[in-house]
């Protein structure tokens, strides 16, 4: 265990991130106080990008776990494995981060089952410790350790919501799609298209976001805009690129597709 190098989890290249308001200061303050953070916002609006950006800025390693339904408590904490000599304990990502001092980022936490989520409780309050019951060890969190979860309120359904007892252990930060101008400049930087095209792509994204609740669960994300921009920068026709990157992924509804192709025609001349 002693040869474990937590620094492999550091982010080498600075991830591109456009500041929207004072979120960098807020996050830095939370980190310094070692307060757990919950970032909320729709798909693809830059939550993960922001956390990576902050890890790089603070020069701390970050361990990301993408949560899914099948994830169990042992997947986070660690487990005994049988080997030829008997058994061997292997730390899970949460234990690794707590032991060695990293930011542990649980992405899309609502996807995990609620019984799994409770294991993080002891790490998120004043105790800052993690009980490895199977191993009989109490891990005291490293002073650099911080827990961050991301959470997409768009999914809110009876089945997939965080318990109050979990929610109330975190400080919250709201994220949304950047305003049109900023979002366009992000698209320009990420994909290399010109501002004119980027502005129109953003307009199209806004059109899809207006349809949320009318047949669409979520509008086109900034990430998809970047895909579309990248395709256009590579020489793909504007309308084809929009169809491929913005419309096709978000809906199977033939009527919405007709509408959106009308919208594409209206926005691009």
């Amino acid at each position, binding site marked *: 265990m002693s040869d474990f190098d937590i620094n492999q989890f550091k982010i080498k290249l600075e991830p591109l991130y456009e500041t929207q308001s004072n979120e960098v200061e807020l996050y830095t303050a939370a980190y310094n106080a070692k307060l757990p953070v919950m970032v909320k916002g729709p798909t693809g609006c830059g939550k993960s990008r922001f956390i990576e950006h902050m890890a790089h800025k603070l020069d701390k390693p970050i361990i990301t776990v993408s949560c899914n339904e*099948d994830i*169990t408590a*042992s997947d986070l904490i660690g*487990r005994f*494995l*049988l*080997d*030829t000599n008997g058994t061997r304990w*292997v730390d899970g990502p949460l234990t690794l981060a707590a032991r060695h001092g990293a930011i542990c980022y649980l992405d899309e936490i609502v996807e995990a089952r609620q019984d799994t989520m409770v294991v993080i409780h002891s790490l998120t309050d004043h105790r800052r410790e993690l009980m490895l019951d199977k191993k009989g060890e109490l891990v005291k969190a490293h002073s650099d350790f911080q827990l961050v979860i991301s959470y997409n309120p768009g999914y809110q359904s009876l089945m997939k919501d965080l318990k109050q007892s979990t929610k109330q252990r975190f400080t919250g930060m709201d994220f949304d799609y950047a305003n049109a101008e900023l979002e366009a400049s992000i698209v320009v930087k990420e994909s290399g298209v010109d501002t004119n095209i980027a502005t129109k792509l953003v*307009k199209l994204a806004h*059109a*899809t976001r*207006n*349809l949320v609740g*009318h*047949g669409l669960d979520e509008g086109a994300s900034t990430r998809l805009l970047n895909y579309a921009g990248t395709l256009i920068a590579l020489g793909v026709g504007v309308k084809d690129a929009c169809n491929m990157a913005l419309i096709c992924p978000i809906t199977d509804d033939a*009527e*919405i597709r*007709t*509408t*959106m192709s*009308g*919208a*594409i*025609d*209206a*926005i*691009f*001349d």
Partner: protein
Amino acid sequence: MQSLIKSSLDSMADQHQSLNCSFNTVQRVFAANIEQATQKLSEQSLIEYYKGAEFLAKIGQGDALSIAFLKIMPWVGEFYGDGSIQKIVDFTYQKISRTPNKGAVEPFLNSFIDVVEHTNNAQLDEYLDLIEYHLSKTTFSVHGIHDTHTSPSLIAILTNMHLLLEQLEFEGIYEWINYGLKYFQDHPERQEEYFSLSSADSKAVFQRQRKGLLFSDVEREINLFQRALWKTDFMYAPYSPNFEKLEHLHPYLEDSVIRLPDIYEPLNGIDACKRYMALVAHLIVHHQFTTKIVADNVSPQQRFFTEIFEDARVEYLAIQIYPGLKNLWLSLIPIVDEFDCDDKHQSCLRHRAIMLTRALLDKNHPYKNQIILDYVEKFKALMSAEETRTLDSLSLGLGYLIKTRSASDTLASIYFENTEVTYRDDNRSMWLFIEEFDEEDNIFEHQKRSEDDEEGIEVIPPHYYDEWDYAYESYKPDWAAVYERLHSHTNASKIEQILDKHSTLVKQLKKVLDLLKPQNKKRLRYQEEGAELDLDIALRSVIDIKNGSPQPDTRINVDFEHDSRSVSVLLLLDLSESLNEVVEQSGQTILELSQEAVSLLAWAVEQLGDNFAIAGFNSDTRKKVMYYHIKGYNEHWDDAVKARLADLKAEFSTRMGAAIRHGAHYLDLQQSDKKLMLILTDGEPADIDVHDSKILIQDTHKAVQEAQQKGMYPYCISLDKKADEYIADIFGSHYSVIDRIESLPQELPKLFLSLTK
């Protein structure tokens, strides 16, 4: 060569200065038309023209035929070519004049004015076949083999030929004719009514056969379009332009409702859906950028040009946001030739307007007229300003009119061709009339007044449903009008009392419900902790370990979970007059018993958490089938719902088919595996405008079949002791008859539970 023919024709005209015919009236018409005929017709056709006119004057039907013939045939002969006039003469004589339909010859000849306009030059035979078909089907004999009775509808159909040919393909006309023949062949008065396009079903069948794209087929797309681009949520009220030919209708947006044509054909390469988008976009940008200005001191002509600048202004503003709209709009604005209109003989108002319209929007417009160019510059200068207003359009419009005004503007003959921009509205929204004028034509007014809605509730337009006619084995289109309303409400405590009264039953039901709740168990594999060891997975993990794999799967258990119910239920209540009858045993009316039963059922279903709706229906002829929402699928069993249920009233009749179709429409939208439609009724389907009871029974059966085809499970609970006579014909085996009506409150929830077990 040409001059040779010309001279020979001249000589022929000279030679026949008088037609070989003794009617003076015919001679006069001949003299008036021969010059035109000579110009238009070939030598061959001209001979046919002469022969035809002479022949028709001699068949003993007076002078009218020859007169009509002489007037119209020059155009017909020119259009269809040699031989066509002869063909028409033969047809007239053989197929019409020698049958009992003599009287139709003149209208037949006159119909060619429209036929020439709306067919291509290879379609003469098709038209003649059509008329022959109609004749052969509608002329009949009572005794013997020879036709003795006139076709009651030939003249009617001929007088409507312009509408038919304009709106329908030949195929569509045959469909329309066949429908009429099927229903009214033996009923001369109604046949005539049908073929003169004056009865409602004739119009409905006609509408259906029209060419083009119906708005209702793209309504959702258009709705999403306005929401996506402008976040607006206007409703629609489509109108049919065809029968209101005299008043030319334009789209408009008023009171948050968009009025638009119910059908569009592709135009200038723009498909119908895109045309609707263009129209909605134009209306919405008006709504966005236009402010009302006072119209009282502005003359109609001044208004006309102001509107053009205003249209251009709002479109310009919209194009700044959505540049693609420009191409869409441009392709729908016609281009006319600059010198096409002669302002000595015609009013060129519209011609000037359409050129200006084009020039304001299109940089590459072809026009050289200096005034137009000046005003395009002025418009550009205006639009480059930071902010523009509707009043700016007014000053441009006034100025333009003054510059271009001409004495001929008031002439009765107006250059009209190709000057209409179809997607633009009538701009009523930009004018404020301080003095009351009766100018606005509100074509929807009659709909509002037609129903006696005492409460004065805002009327939701009715849904029309077809009705099955078993005798003719076909649907009568758009036959029943279903109006939906939220049921009125009163004090909810009545329902609470009912539940209290049946508290023992409620307790019994609770036991059944508890048993029912756990449904099939579902196996969950790959569990770290679970009820049993999953041997397959466990073995696989052991093998992994033996192989030295560092990460064997530890999820070797299997667990069980209760499967959730996925049921949607619609309870459809018959609210017809007969429910007011008192049941002797209990002293309550059937309606009260139904209320109790439904309360208990609703309570039970709420416990189970199923998706559940309650609706009631009754009918007062096919024109007014009422469908009351009592509980929506998304509503809980709360006081609002109870209050509506407490206020149930029973009146009118039972047109069940239409109600089932409407209920099925909503049930179909629910996303669940099982869809159950419970119909609670106390008698057979009936209505006061239907005398053959079998019609509505068969129609209901058809409606049930339609629902079944959509994957629903209709089930009837009948309180009619005599139901056995007809109910199996409607619902097959899916019904129960409750003989002891007073036991309904106990029976209904139990029945439901057993159905969904």
